[in-house]
């Protein structure tokens, strides 16, 4: 029982962070059709900035959140304007753009490592370290913060994409950029908006998860693997898929952590990714996307 509750909570809180990262990947992908491999580094920057603003400088938590959202929005925008847009304008192949985002990830990671060193920094959780005890298991309040905020973000994203004209425009731009332009949608600007939004979401994910792991320039890669795997397992571009994929990977990682070893988490991630893709090449919720976005 004890280990069961422990596994569930670890799975849910890490799963929520993966889901948030997968969501941020989807936000960018489902409008611009760019797979942005710098998302893991955005998450890392969010964690590092969280450490700087909250743990080191001692700013109020809400202010740290606002500052991180602002700066990560700018980082996302900068990546779009400096790396992605010039290639889109020249009609570069998708694969070229993808590789360019790898480059951006490398630059961000190296800059962070040069600026902050390779140290793993423990980030201070906003609700303190005193655990709740559920079923005899001590649980860090941060776990609930991660899960709660992720749920809130999901509801917000659902509302934005299904109930607002901006959401419709974001979907239209992804589906047919020319069709979107002729009704007056500024596709270039929407792409910029999604990169800023993707930066903010990933940054917040990093801020939330860093008290449960640590903040260091290298943690982006680990999370990027899980975030992309979550997005792909769930079905690229699918919102429910991001959540399902995140939770499945969270569970796999938690089980490995509890019963085998933390180092086998990535191994489990890839095995799961392969298994899901063998059975459903489009991911769990991918078929619906294929049907919706397929040729008619």
């Amino acid at each position, binding site marked *: 029982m004890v280990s069961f509750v422990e596994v569930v909570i670890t799975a849910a809180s890490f799963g929520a962070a993966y889901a948030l990262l997968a969501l941020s990947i989807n936000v960018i992908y489902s409008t611009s059709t760019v797979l942005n491999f710098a998302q893991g580094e955005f998450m890392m920057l969010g964690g590092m900035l969280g450490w700087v603003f909250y743990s080191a400088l001692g700013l109020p938590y809400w202010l740290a959140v606002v500052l991180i959202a602002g700066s990560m929005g700018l980082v996302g925008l900068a990546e779009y304007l400096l790396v992605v847009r010039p290639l889109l304008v020249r009609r570069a192949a998708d694969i070229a753009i993808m590789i360019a985002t790898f480059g951006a990830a490398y630059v961000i990671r190296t800059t962070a490592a040069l600026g902050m060193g390779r140290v793993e920094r423990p980030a201070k959780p906003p609700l303190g370290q005193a655990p709740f005890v559920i079923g005899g298991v001590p649980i860090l309040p941060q776990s609930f913060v991660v899960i709660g905020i992720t749920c809130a973000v999901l509801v917000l994203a659902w509302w934005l994409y299904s109930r607002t004209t901006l959401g419709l425009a974001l979907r239209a731009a992804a589906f047919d950029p020319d069709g979107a332009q002729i009704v007056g949608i500024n596709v270039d600007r929407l792409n910029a908006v999604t990169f800023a939004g993707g930066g903010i979401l990933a940054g917040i994910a990093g801020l939330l998860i860093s008290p449960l792991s640590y903040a260091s320039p290298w943690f982006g890669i680990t999370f990027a693997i899980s975030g992309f795997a979550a997005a792909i397992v769930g079905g690229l571009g699918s919102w429910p898929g991001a959540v399902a994929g995140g939770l499945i990977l969270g569970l796999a990682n938690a089980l490995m952590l509890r019963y085998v070893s933390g180092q086998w988490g990535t191994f489990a991630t890839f095995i799961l990714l392969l298994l899901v893709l063998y059975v459903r090449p489009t991911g769990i919720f991918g078929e619906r996307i294929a049907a919706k976005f397929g040729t*008619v």
Partner: protein
Amino acid sequence: MNTASSFLSVSGLSVSYGQIRAIRDVSLNVFSGEIVAILGANGAGKSTLMKAVAGLVPPAAGNVEIEGRSVSRLPAHQRPGMGVALVPEGRKLFTPLTVEQNLRLGAYSLGQSASRKLVGERMDEVLETFPVLADRLHALAGELSGGQQQMLAIGRALMSKPRLLLLDEPSLGLAPRIVEDVFATLLALNESRDLSVLIAEQNIREALAVADRAYVIQLGKVVIEDDADILFDRKDIEDVYMGRYKDGADREVACDDR
């Protein structure tokens, strides 16, 4: 011809794709309230011309003016705001979205300030023009038949209350009876002469039957320009299609006009 009263004025327009010049030195006018047809075979440059007027391809030379104002440097997404709406070849509907959502997006250029009421009024007008869409408001655009999709594409364009409607091959892939319906609707829309229409077609007879004037383009150049009824009576009109149009079979092939 008096260009002062023309709604659309294209002068000396050339468009290239890489080394290939798709249209060269094309000049034409659409006067307010007119229906003008662009006729030509597959690959003659009709689609390129329409895309250039809509801003989807940049001109290599020449100028596009809307009501005397040059729009050649204006990006495509700003042209609906100038009163120009394109019904593109292949329709380019948002097939994963519903009919209603497609129509709502058609009003996107009216801006965030456009009230629900205004968008609702536009939608009522469009649904009055195409009653069949009213029954299918919540269906996905991709589930509609070809004819319904064409009506939705025109309806979406009308949502922005355009003053010039650009139609690129509206009859492509449609049954003859549906084509008749579409052209009859165009005539009805144009009846009050508030709406000008520029229509690119391979289906010459149908297009000439509704048009006031027509331009025939061949290999990217305007070769004939005349009143529609005069062209309609010309027996050699089909010959300018370089024999490609003879059996009409290629009409069914959704070929990229580029």
